[in-house]
């Protein structure tokens, strides 16, 4: 052995070992992972050429593609291309109007309590099976069934007896869903709801194929098993890695899908995704880290899209001293949103009202504007100041995040400067934060809301006394009554006025919360991509998108 070793020079020996290293690299590579070819579970492989493939970042693995159970953005990005609902959105229209999809038309009685949907005939699923009304009913039933354990079951709680069915108190035959004819669906609601069709554009209410779910169980959403009625078919899904859609040539709707493959990568880190965009691997990224924004704004690929998402500071209205509405009013008047937005420097829209711009129910003239005089007067009315109570010390909590941190610091500085109020900032990890808001909300807390559907009820409902999302513990029966009236009102203008009044009650009289700004999303879209679905609802439907 000694001689053998001696015969090799040490450098040659190292060279030999490096070769071994190289060979082992090559061997691992031979296990068949190539970026341009994907083996399909149905057999064969897909060859992804640049000209035929749109590469998009999905950010993370979709928790599920089972639309009765999916709740997050990455899942719906995929689902909205594979499947469609009874109605859909006209994403080009100003206030995101509804348009027919699987339902050709719909109508309701005068009270908006009984709805009838007429379904399209001669539609076929990707596997050639006919689309039926029963599949719509199955979708509703599955979403609501107790043992499905779906988070969005409450979406359909407005249907007569749906909640009782979800709790196992009544059978399905008691629920207000009925097929009047094979293609005519009647839905009876507990109470009038003028926006009910919006709910049927949401993935959770999409029709399902029970035959496939029975056949494959939880694996029905895997490539090779899954079918839909949408413009794209799921061809491959390598968990935690990527997901491939191919256009469905027999798609019934319009426009027809043009890009052959949509290849979703799952790149979690925004800066990594940017690197992949810069190196030409990704065509689109929809997250740009704050530190990069300034530089990227100058790029011709840069796009900014207003979102239906509002950020606010809520008050715990049940504990000292924020149970004093005058103190809350003083704080609301002392916060200058323009300055906050300037610090964020991302084109966010300052917001005094509750519903974000771009949606029916947005008011620019509602809420408490920054006004130092009023702020100080209300602080005095609250019993603070010279010769009165000493100023209280408040706690402001937010979930750990650089943006929330800078907003909180700005508000802290403004309240100190404008009112002399001392505010202590505390941040917590997301789930701990949620737990805290449930158990014991602090004086002031950060929260936000993103539209499930672009109807004001989705936002206004949050602050009702019966809402699980009302973390302020503010209760106002007049507000509750207004929201119920708004839901049942079918006249658009009357509805608008109801929400204006409710917004005033919430933000000017009750001051349960201070809206801060409406969020925007920042994207980079490669020049070769035309008509990319960048919209306020974050609904990514690729059927109208083309590659140059």
């Amino acid at each position, binding site marked *: 052995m000694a001689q053998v070793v001696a015969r090799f020079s040490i450098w040659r020996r190292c060279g030999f070992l490096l070769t071994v290293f190289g060979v082992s690299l090559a061997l691992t590579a031979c296990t068949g992972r190539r970026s341009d070819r994907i083996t399909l579970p149905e057999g064969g492989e897909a060859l992804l050429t640049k000209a035929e493939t749109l590469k998009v970042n999905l950010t993370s693995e979709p928790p599920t593609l089972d639309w009765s159970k999916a709740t997050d953005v990455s899942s719906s990005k995929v689902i909205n291309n594979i499947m469609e609902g009874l109605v859909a959105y006209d994403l080009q229209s100003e206030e995101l109007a509804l348009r027919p999809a699987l339902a050709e038309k719909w109508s309701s009685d005068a009270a908006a309590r009984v709805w009838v949907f007429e379904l399209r005939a001669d539609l076929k699923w990707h596997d050639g099976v006919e689309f039926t009304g029963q599949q719509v009913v199955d979708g509703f039933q599955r979403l609501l069934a107790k043992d499905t354990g779906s988070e969005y079951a409450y979406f359909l709680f407005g249907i007569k007896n749906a909640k009782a069915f979800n709790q196992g108190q009544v059978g399905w035959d008691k629920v207000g869903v009925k097929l009047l004819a094979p293609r005519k669906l009647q839905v009876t609601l507990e109470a009038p709801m003028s926006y009910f069709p919006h709910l049927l554009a949401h993935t959770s209410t999409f029709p399902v194929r029970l035959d496939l779910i029975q056949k494959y169980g939880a694996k029905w959403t895997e490539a090779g098993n899954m079918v839909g009625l949408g413009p794209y078919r799921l061809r491959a899904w390598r968990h935690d890695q990527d997901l491939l859609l191919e256009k469905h040539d027999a798609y019934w709707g319009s426009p027809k899908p043009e890009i052959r493959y949509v290849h979703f990568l799952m790149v979690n*880190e925004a800066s990594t995704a940017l690197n992949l965009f810069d190196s030409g691997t990704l065509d689109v990224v929809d997250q740009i880290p704050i530190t990069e924004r300034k530089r990227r704004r100058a790029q011709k690929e840069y796009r900014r899209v207003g979102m239906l998402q509002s950020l606010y500071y809520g008050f715990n209205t049940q504990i000292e001293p924020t149970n004093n509405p005058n103190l809350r009013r003083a704080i609301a008047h002392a916060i200058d949103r323009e300055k906050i937005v300037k610090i964020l420097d991302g084109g966010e829209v300052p917001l005094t009202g509750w519903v974000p711009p771009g949606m029916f129910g947005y008011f620019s003239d509602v809420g408490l504007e920054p006004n130092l005089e009023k702020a100080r007067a209300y602080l005095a009315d609250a019993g603070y100041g010279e010769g009165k109570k000493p100023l209280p010390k408040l706690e402001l909590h937010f979930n750990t995040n650089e943006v929330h941190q800078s907003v909180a610091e700005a508000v802290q500085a403004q309240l100190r400067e404008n009112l002399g109020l001392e505010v202590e900032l505390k941040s917590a990890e997301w789930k701990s934060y949620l737990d805290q808001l449930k158990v014991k909300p602090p004086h002031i807390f950060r929260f936000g809301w993103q539209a499930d559907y672009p109807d004001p009820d989705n936002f206004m409902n949050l602050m009702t006394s019966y809402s699980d999302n009302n973390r302020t513990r503010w209760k106002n029966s007049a507000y509750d009554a207004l929201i119920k009236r708004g839901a049942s009102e079918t006249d658009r203008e009357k509805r608008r006025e109801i929400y204006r009044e409710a917004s005033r009650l919430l933000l000017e009289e009750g001051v349960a919360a201070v809206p801060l700004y409406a969020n925007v999303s920042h994207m980079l879209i490669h020049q070769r991509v035309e008509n990319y679905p960048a919209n306020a609802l974050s609904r990514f439907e690729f059927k109208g998108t083309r590659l140059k």
Partner: protein
Amino acid sequence: MSGKGLYILKRLLGAVITLAVIATLTFALLRILPGGPFDTEKALPDEVKANIEARYGLDRPLLEQYLNFMSGLVRGDLGESYKYVGRSVADIISEALPVSMELGLMSLLLAYIVGIPLGVFAAARHNSAFDTGAMLIAVSGVALPSFMVGPLLISLFSFGIPFAFLQGSLPPALWESPAHYILPVVTLGLRPAAILARMTRGAVLESIHQDYVRTARAKGVSERVVLFKHVLRNSLIPILSISGPLVAGLLSGSFIIEIIFAIPGIGKHLVQSVTNRDYPLILALTLVFSMMLVIANLVVDLLYGFVDPRVRPEKSGSGG
């Protein structure tokens, strides 16, 4: 049974007990942690949440949940993820772990190939410019965090900053072909290579002045044989000692490297499962990592015996 067999059996038994204790502690800690798996931004109505919890057996008394979990473990059933609907924890781990192991194994190989020779040569040329240079690299390798090295290498080899001719020579992320492997493997391997180099150098320096080395040289044995046969072999013990934790650490992947290079390994799950409060996944991952550490340490302990005949684990048993 031979002494060694008995020794291994004893160690394995100890490992099982250790794992059971870890499982129990993790289970308890998770339940103390505020926030549950189904606390969401859009708060769920109580009745909806109750249905979901019932589906996963979270409505049962805690003791029953614990016993179910432990009996599942014994049967080898790790349960279903709370976050990834319908995917078993075993599936998730068996898809992600091999990727992390691949990355770890390649980095480890790189670390040994680079680290050990570097250490030996540095020691052989003690106090020379080579020694100083090698140790400078080694100290930087230990000190520089991978979240800095990774992006630096990406800038250099993917975007040609500052050397434009290097632009596009290596992809900046993903895990698809050998070209994709190079940057993450080097980034991950740098630190262990540096640690190994320093360890080796120290150990070699200690043995290089021993009498048997002088004897070998006096007998006219070539310097390289002296170094690699006589000296290195006797310096392997400290290198082996750190190899256990090193191997376990590398094979389990590195969260930061996997994030920077978008590698579909286990590191991401380690962090996100906690953020998501995905109890079954957290528990399974904790156990897998504990197991890897236990096994790596056991293997190292056994290897001691081969490297240095004076260390025989079974000595106390049957007398070797």
